[in-house]
């Protein structure tokens, strides 16, 4: 798989997360690509966890839906884990 779709997905999650948190400098997104699958890990400052998960997980759900749809368009499967 070319690196372009993965880089695009990482940039997308990074930009959204930075917009949501109080400490954008502490946003980190790592990608682990195997075959046609990409596992993304999002890390934020501990006090910002709520801002990327949301009440009832609503923000995390929205993030996953968006990144999954974008990945599908590039023919890639993606998972997004928020790591604490």
């Amino acid at each position: 798989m070319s690196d372009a779709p993965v880089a695009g997905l990482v940039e997308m999650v990074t930009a959204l997360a930075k917009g949501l948190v109080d400490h954008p400098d502490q946003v980190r997104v790592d990608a682990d690509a195997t075959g046609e699958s990409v596992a993304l890990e999002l890390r934020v400052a501990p006090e910002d966890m709520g801002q990327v998960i949301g009440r009832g997980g609503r923000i995390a759900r929205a993030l996953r839906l968006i990144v999954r749809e974008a990945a599908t368009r590039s023919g890639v499967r993606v998972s997004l884990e928020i790591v604490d």
Partner: protein
Amino acid sequence: MADQNELSPGGLALVEVLTVVATGFGVAATVTVTDVGDEEFSVVIEGEGADALVGTDGSVIDALQYLSSQIMSRAEGGGRYRVALDAGGYRARREAALVDLANRAAEEALEFGEEIELDAMSPHDRRIVHMALKDRDDVVTRSEGDEPRRRIIVEPAD
């Protein structure tokens, strides 16, 4: 209407984030943010293939709209800001289709002298249908049932 280079911090943040998101969908997009007042912003994403940002039944654009209001509220330093997001003219097309549906239901209700029950819809979509028929004096609308199965009934006025 605010010029793009006079945007508030929230407007600037949204232009930046949504441009990156569009790029991730393979769309070279233009993002326009308008402060419509009353803590509400209208955001339009345009560009070749912007339909990609709509998703099945608007799932992607609804998710993006929700995150946009969160991003806007944080960048503006708290408060609750509403963001109405459209991409590739989706909302306008959807609204036109709902108004059309409302008018056809009204004609059917009058023709058969009966209640016409529409499919279940979101509160946003139901509001469009109610608004489309509210100025008519020959039909009335009401909603029945519980979310997410709540639906509109159109019937002849007495």
